[in-house]
């Protein structure tokens, strides 16, 4: 086989090699961007191997089933059927009917999304004024402010959740502080181990992260546009509404996504401060891969979660007409 192939290949190469430059160099000169991809290729390869391949493996796994000790690799939709199996028995959650036989995953997903939405709203409401303050009011020591905002992003997330556990606990800082001041006689029980505690903790953990993208888009705004609006008779509030807010939309939208998507799957915060009432979909995924030892069902729940998040994000971007906003930002 190789006897035949070798001479043919050599004959093909012979006439082109005398002009000094090897084929590789000529191709790279003709298409300079190939050098760019050559430089990037190790990184792209790592990302493919450690991100795309595992996600595909997870997806494939969701069509398999767990039999006590081993995994049955015949293709089946049984895991998905289990999650969405209809039933006459209706489970109510906050008055919403779920006519499902195993409603726990769907309810937890809906609950996680509702909690993440609440976190996102709180984070934007807290972060926007701060970003505005830093972009328009801080004139000196800007670097100091930026670093002060950045430190909490990089210092341990786990420790911040731990701090809130200490704050909100039955024997915690808030309760002991208030009792010490004589404002309450008994510890407030509603502080820890409920969805509100999870929302507060998550909002605090993500708010610093949210400031920077909004700040960057506010900082980019051409200040002469603001002057023009004032000259044309806009009051400060109108000016904010007509100029500043629309122009900072790209950063704000990026922030909404940066906060919403990861918090849906969070499981450390619910595990530490949520109690049984505050658990989220991430906790059940962790249980399925851990103690319950049902990786295929866990994979299916993960896939359903990612698909739902993707659908919500697409719907959101369509609703706010993201293409138009981005095009406006480019000009």
């Amino acid at each position, binding site marked *: 086989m190789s006897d035949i192939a070798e001479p043919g290949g050599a004959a093909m190469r012979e006439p082109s090699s005398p002009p000094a430059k090897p084929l590789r160099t000529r191709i790279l000169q003709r298409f300079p*961007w190939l*050098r*760019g*991809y050559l*430089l*990037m290729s*190790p*990184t*792209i390869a*790592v*990302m493919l191997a*450690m*991100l*795309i391949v*595992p*996600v595909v493996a997870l997806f494939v*796994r969701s069509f398999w089933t767990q039999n006590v000790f081993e995994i049955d690799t015949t293709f089946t939709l049984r895991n998905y059927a289990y999650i969405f199996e209809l039933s006459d028995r209706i489970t109510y959650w906050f008055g919403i009917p779920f006519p499902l036989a195993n409603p726990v995953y769907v309810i937890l997903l809906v609950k996680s999304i509702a909690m993440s939405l609440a976190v996102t709203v709180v984070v934007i409401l*807290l972060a926007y004024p*701060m970003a505005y*303050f*830093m972009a328009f*009011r*801080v004139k000196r020591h*800007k670097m100091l402010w*930026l*670093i*002060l905002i*950045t*430190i*909490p992003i*990089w*210092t*341990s997330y*786990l*420790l911040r959740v731990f*701090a809130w*556990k*200490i704050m909100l606990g039955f*024997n915690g800082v808030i*309760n*002991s502080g208030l009792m*010490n001041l004589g404002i309450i006689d008994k510890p407030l029980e509603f502080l820890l181990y409920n969805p509100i505690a999870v929302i507060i903790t998550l909002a605090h953990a993500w708010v*610093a992260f949210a400031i*920077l*993208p909004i*700040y*960057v888009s506010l*900082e980019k705004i051409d200040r002469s546009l603001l002057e023009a609006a004032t000259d044309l008779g806009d009051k400060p509030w109108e000016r904010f509404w007509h100029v500043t807010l629309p122009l900072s939309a790209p950063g704000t939208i990026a922030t909404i996504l*940066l906060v919403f*998507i*990861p*918090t849906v*799957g*969070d499981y*450390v915060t619910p595990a530490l401060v949520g109690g049984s009432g505050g658990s989220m979909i991430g906790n059940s*995924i*962790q249980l399925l*891969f851990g103690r319950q030892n049902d990786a295929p069902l866990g*994979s299916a729940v*993960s896939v359903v979660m990612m698909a739902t998040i993707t659908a919500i994000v697409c719907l959101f971007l369509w609703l706010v007409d993201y293409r138009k906003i981005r095009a406006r930002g480019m000009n």
Partner: protein
Amino acid sequence: MSKRFDLLTIYGIVFLVFLYAPVLLLPVFSVNDATVAIFPLKGFTLKAYGQMVNNPALLAALKNSLVVAVGVSVVSTAFGLLAAMGVTRYKLPGQGPVMSVIMLPLVVPSIILAVALLVLVRQVFDIPLTLWTVAAGHILICVPFSMMVLMSRLEGFDRSLEEASADLGESGWMTFWRVTFPIAMPGIVASLLMCFTISLDEYVLAFFLSGLDQTLPIFLYGQLRFPQRLPMTLALGTTILIVSTIIVIFSEILRRRGVQSTKPTGL
């Protein structure tokens, strides 16, 4: 000065207090002479720090974390630098989608990354879970950060310096070592420090991908279940907090210096 100026400034200060107050409780209670974190404070003691440095399990976890974090920061920065160079100096067709894939780990919930890697490692390749698998997971989330830091460093980079070096007869490698590398240096150090902190603090991926060897956050999380060990846990948390704060300040100063102030630098 208008009234709005005052309100916003007050808000800015209140915001900082809100951001820092909960975390500052850790150092305060870590030196409080009591086994529960409640007011009023009792007395000053460093007992908990003594317990901390005499705990063999903690020291083993610390060693594991340091080994992983150093390895992760070096490898991630190397990958980040290659990718940042590719993106900043060539007009790449299809750059948008490629960048989106590389940046994906920043957005995808870490539990998804963790279970996907777990499936690959355990069920597809059947590799035992060790610190190597933890490091692999950390590299996945550090590369995008490293790339962003280095891109902002390399974007304002004057290519004529490299061309001059080539004209003066330096080979490609020597140009890289003597021109490109020194210019990118502050970005590289910032990226190394940032990846080190991310890896040192990361819990979710480490939890799913570690075997018998714990890292520091896993050890810390395990301690949270024991109320009687609260003082030592607080001391450990405080130490981690101080170390990572120093590293972050240092890397931020390095990163923001030299980037023109007209161009706001985001993440």
